[in-house]
């Protein structure tokens, strides 16, 4: 299926996605959109792992298992982050990072 497509194309695609996530992480102020940027970054790393595994080491499965674990970590991270965001919203009635500036309550 992946014949005729060089490995570099996958890596460049993942690079674009990664730096779109970095841009969003730097410019966004809403906590949920920051979380979405982090998901973009994690997803681009998964593409890299799978492309390396298929093109360079097709007789092994390391890249695939690593991306399974990355997905599991990303899922638990999203769950905890959203719990924290909802708790912050309850206390401050906003999830703008610049209005949430004290940890003491």
């Amino acid at each position, binding site marked *: 299926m992946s014949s005729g497509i060089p490995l570099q194309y996958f890596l460049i695609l993942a690079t674009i996605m990664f730096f779109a996530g970095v841009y969003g992480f730097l410019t966004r102020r*809403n906590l949920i959109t920051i979380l*979405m940027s982090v998901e973009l970054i994690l*997803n681009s790393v998964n593409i890299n792992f799978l492309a390396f595994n298929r093109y*360079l080491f097709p007789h092994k499965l390391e890249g*695939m*298992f690593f991306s399974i674990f990355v997905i599991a970590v*990303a899922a638990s991270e999203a769950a905890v982050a959203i719990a924290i965001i909802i708790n912050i919203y309850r206390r401050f009635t906003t999830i703008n990072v610049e209005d949430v500036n004290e940890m003491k309550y």
Partner: protein
Amino acid sequence: MASNQIMFILFALMITVFSVLTVTTRKILRAAVFLLFVLVSTSGLYFMLNYQFMAAIQLTLYAGGIVVLIIFSILLTSHISQKFESSGWKKNIFSALAAITGAILSIVTILDYSFSATKEAAQEVDMHLIGRSLLSVDKDGYVLPFEVISVLLLAAMIAAIVIAKKAGPAKTLSPKLNQE
């Protein structure tokens, strides 16, 4: 041009356009939907790489689970039609500069490096093999990371419940908000 190359170009265009739109759109619900498109086309890429299991995980867990979670929390915390105010042109320009510089640096490095593949025969990835290696204690087994990740998932589940549990509203308001 072969059909798989056309498919790759399609997925690549979708991922590029929608991931840029995810981080630049001013409406939060649209950002979530664009993120969904990015994740679905990523699973298409996994199908092209012949990792059906990963593509299924991507669809169910990312596109199904995480995006729904994000959309739910958007609906709980903000108005649907609410627009973000622009975050200042200075911040935008410097962030774009950092991102574009990093992207160009990485792409130049990728194009410069000569990747060398092994000559070994490709292995067919079926469910049987995945299950066997996930739970085997032999040389290519992954039972330890599997156990660690299951403990992590349990901890995350308990933590999410404990954090999101409702606390008393009156005493938790910050003094600053009380004054207003």
